[in-house]
């Protein structure tokens, strides 16, 4: 059974203080690893998909990287508007293309 574990559960940073969120996974065959951002009272918003070890993707202050066992979401010089819960998910290899989610990391950026 596919499993996804995110750490830390919560992270508080000062504005401009860079850090990384971790997502470790165990899957029978990785078809894709996803990062989503979720604001309070909203649905998850797609950020990145990574498919193979060594792949990296960037968007503004965010960069996602992937190894064979984990993914990192690096946040460089964050701003208060980056405060949100960040969810990691892996795609199950079976035909219905279901996502298996981690529990999320709640990120707070203080001004």
């Amino acid at each position, binding site marked *: 059974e596919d499993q*996804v574990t*995110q750490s830390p*559960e919560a992270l508080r940073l000062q504005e401009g203080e860079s850090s990384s969120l971790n997502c470790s996974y165990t899957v029978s065959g990785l*078809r*894709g690893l*996803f990062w989503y951002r979720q604001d309070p*009272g*909203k*649905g*998850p*918003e*797609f950020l990145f*998909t990574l*498919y193979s070890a060594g792949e990296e993707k960037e968007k503004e202050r965010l960069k996602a990287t992937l190894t064979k066992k984990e993914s990192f979401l690096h946040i460089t010089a964050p701003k208060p508007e980056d405060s949100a819960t960040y*969810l990691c*998910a892996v*795609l199950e290899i079976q*035909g*219905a*293309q*279901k*996502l*298996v*989610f*981690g*529990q*999320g990391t709640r990120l707070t950026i203080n001004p």
Partner: protein
Amino acid sequence: NAGVTQTPKFRILKIGQSMTLQCTQDMNHNYMYWYRQDPGMGLKLIYYSVGAGITDKGEVPNGYNVSRSTTEDFPLRLELAAPSQTSVYFCASKLAGVSSEGYGYTFGSGTRLTVV
């Protein structure tokens, strides 16, 4: 283009009552999903559908039922509501196969349900 629309946004039910959570998408997506999210937890799959007339159970289906009579609609039915069903419910949809952007799910904004 509305994307995935969920109604209602909020609802309070008494124990034993029933209700239907509505989900509609206008993107002609084949696949649709219902997830629930409890505080501090990730999303857990309740039911999914790969096309009209086809549904299947996910990880946590007990106490729920679904139907998929059209491509657009995927309602979730709660029979005999229980406090354990207090949660936020998200509907999602996607096209079958792989797009250039990857396996892109589109989520609705959620329904917050409280059972008292």
